[in-house]
């Protein structure tokens, strides 16, 4: 497994290096100017020039890129133009909230997918399948900003049982019971699409497994369909589902940007939106590079789990 991991690492580092250059170039290609946004329309040319020099934006682009790389190498992520604080602190604060939201959504999606898929193949009932198919189609088709608003309308306005958004007044740690209620709606909203996609994939994977000869043999021996699904088919269907789960995690991270805006969840989504609209180069660059790094890490992790679940992968890779 270690050799397998070492083989995958260089390509991940190349992806990160290429991404750093792409991100640096991309944020500067976007029309707009951090100085104009910071100074506002009524600032004098002298004031704008002073701000430009202060931010180091009067330096050649290559110099700015190399300076940024040097800072990254020293683990210095720089200072935000707009917010003023250290980028590492801002990202750390936001990342905790985004990870809590994304991981909760992922857990919900996995639980929903497991329960729905197992039910669909064990019961093998036309009406259950139709209901699950309808629910999945709806969850995939409806955009997050629609499901988010519908959830808020239903559970925060019409039946005021859950908060419409925001964070617990006393923080997440002091009152976990209250925090869970603040987390529930955004997590469900984020999980819907991923849960539906996973359900579809896992259901199909289970059905494929149930057509395998070993299942026919087991059925001939009198073993129940439920037991075959839970003890054999599910485990065999999981490796390919884990790959989809890795991709879904990336989708969830992207979706979190929108969900955080709808539910005013103070994660990286709000931070990236503010950074991009204000052309806060240091913050945008780090956030985008972090997104790439997380995605690369998740893909790596997915491959490792896949290899662990299915020995053929690592043996094939070794040969």
């Amino acid at each position: 497994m270690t050799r397998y991991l070492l083989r995958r690492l260089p390509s991940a580092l190349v992806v990160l290096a290429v991404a750093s250059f792409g991100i640096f170039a991309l944020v500067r290609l976007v029309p707009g100017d951090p100085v104009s946004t910071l100074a506002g329309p009524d600032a004098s040319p002298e004031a704008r020039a002073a701000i430009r020099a202060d931010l180091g934006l009067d330096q050649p682009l290559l110099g700015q890129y190399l300076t940024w790389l040097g800072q990254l190498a020293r683990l210095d992520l720089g200072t935000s133009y707009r917010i003023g604080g250290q980028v590492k602190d801002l990202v750390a604060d936001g990342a905790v909230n985004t990870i809590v939201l994304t991981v909760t959504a992922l857990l919900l999606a996995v639980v929903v997918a497991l329960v729905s898929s197992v039910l669909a193949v064990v019961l093998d009932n036309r009406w259950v399948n139709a209901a699950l198919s309808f629910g999945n189609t709806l969850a995939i088709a409806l955009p997050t900003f629609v499901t988010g608003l519908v959830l808020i309308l239903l559970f925060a306005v019409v039946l005021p049982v859950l908060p419409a958004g925001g964070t617990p007044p006393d923080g997440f740690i002091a009152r976990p019971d209250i925090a869970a209620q603040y987390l529930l709606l955004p997590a469900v909203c984020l999980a819907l699409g991923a849960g539906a996609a996973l359900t579809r994939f896992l259901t199909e994977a289970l059905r494929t497994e149930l057509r395998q000869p070993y299942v026919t043999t087991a059925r001939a021996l009198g073993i129940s369909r439920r037991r075959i699904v839970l003890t054999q088919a599910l485990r065999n269907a999981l490796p390919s589902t884990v790959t989809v789960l890795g991709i879904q995690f990336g989708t969830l991270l992207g979706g979190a940007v929108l969900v955080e805006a709808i539910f005013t969840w103070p994660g990286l989504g709000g931070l990236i939106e503010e950074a991009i609209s204000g052309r806060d180069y240091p913050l945008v660059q780090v956030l985008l590079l972090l997104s790439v790094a997380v995605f690369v890490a998740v893909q790596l992790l997915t491959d490792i789990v896949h290899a662990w679940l299915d020995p053929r992968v690592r043996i094939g890779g070794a040969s």
Partner: protein
Amino acid sequence: MRRERRPHLLRGLALTLAGLLVVAVVSACSSAVGEANGGGSASGPSEGGVLRVGAGSDLIPASVFTNSSDVANTLVGTVYESLVDYPTDSLEPQPRLATSWQQSDDGLSLTLQLRDDVTFHSGRDLTSEDVEFSIRTWADPAWTVQLQRTAAAITGFDTSDPHAITLTFAHPLSNVFDLLDMLPIIDSESIDQLREGTAYVGTGPFVFESWTPSSKVVLTRNEDYWGEQPLLDGVEIDVVTDPQAQASQLRSGQLDVALGLTDRDRESFEKDDAYSVTEFKGAENAIYLGADLANPDLREVKLRQAIAYALDRQRIVDEVFRGAGTPANLPWPESSPAYDARANQTYAYDAAKAEELVSQLGDQPTLPLAYPAGNGNFEAVAQVVQANLEAVGIETKLEPQEYSQFIKQLIGGTFGGLWILEHSYAQYTPSTLTVSAYPFNADKNASHFSSPAYQKHADGAWQRDSGTDRGAVRIYRQLNQDLLDNLFLIEIAVTPPRVATTAKVHDIGLSKRNELDLGRAYLAD
């Protein structure tokens, strides 16, 4: 008989479900909604409670004094105080940190007496040196504040008396009290933390506790406040950038005050007895159509006149601002000394006249019409303007632009056509607008408009000792004529700010600076 082992997977699933069930049961015991809606049970003015304010835009420390975000406005209005306060309906300064003042006969100096019982939130006494420090900070171009030029025209400070200061001017300043109303008195010892957004030390009724970027600002009552103690325990300013999310949070009781609603949402709250929508006079904004005279077609004043006649301003007020506003040809609200009801009707809607002017000019090329994207009001106004102009034979091409790009074009004067935006500060002494606000700036503006007469009138209005006497009003008439004759900015409507609250919020105010005044606010059913 051997008992069958349940699969690990099934056990994991059951445990996860059980965990979720436990969370749900525990959650049911204590309701976040119930706790959020708590407080404010008394029926009259009562102490206590935290007011939760929904703000549409977050704080930017470098721009905290530019009046450009809901969070900054609320923070500055509650944590800091100025030397004088303007009432919302006039330009007669009222005492705040300054108790009285005396202007010299030549208008070149002003002596202010300061309160001797004021301390900063840090515990340090307020002195005249703090006033000097605040004015010098305001004059520093790096802060890019409105009235920087007026602050920079204050050239001398006599701070020999800790409770009095004499200011000397480079020339008479008609808008010096605008500066003294807008200028928050800041603590010199914490200026570095202020720049970083980690401390805001003022003398006001509330004390800054914390700022979590993109999330919230927390303020608590100043127990040592020199004036009447605030009734609220504190204020929490929540950053809720999405207007629909603000509306939902106001409806669900998570917010008490919503500053960033759309006009349609405000209208629906207005019809509901559980909420209150207050319209504040004295801090008006104005929406306008700018014309870039670098475009050869727009250099023809007849075309600009045709555009001015073609605009159905009442329709814009009714449909976009849901009736909250007044059609306008000039930027001034009714409380301004430059307000002239007759002149304000010069280009009243007259499509036939507009069509006639266009026919005199012959075929017109399509004009670009830029506006900041993502703002429902600008988008709707742009669509009405496009339809109005098309009806009289002027084709336009809508160009929604991301805000940062839009401001860059405004500063660079590179629109090359028409643009829609709003401005403030017309509620102050008129010279504040014509000297400091970029679209109107006689020296340099986004329209590429220059005129010796306009420059002379703008400077004349500024460099005099009074901004409200008869002589000043005479100059304002000339300025009005300059604006109406040249139409480099075509005003559309003056709109008052409106704030939606739940019915349990009482006695909130809004200053001329467009800052929430929560000094006497309280929560009660």
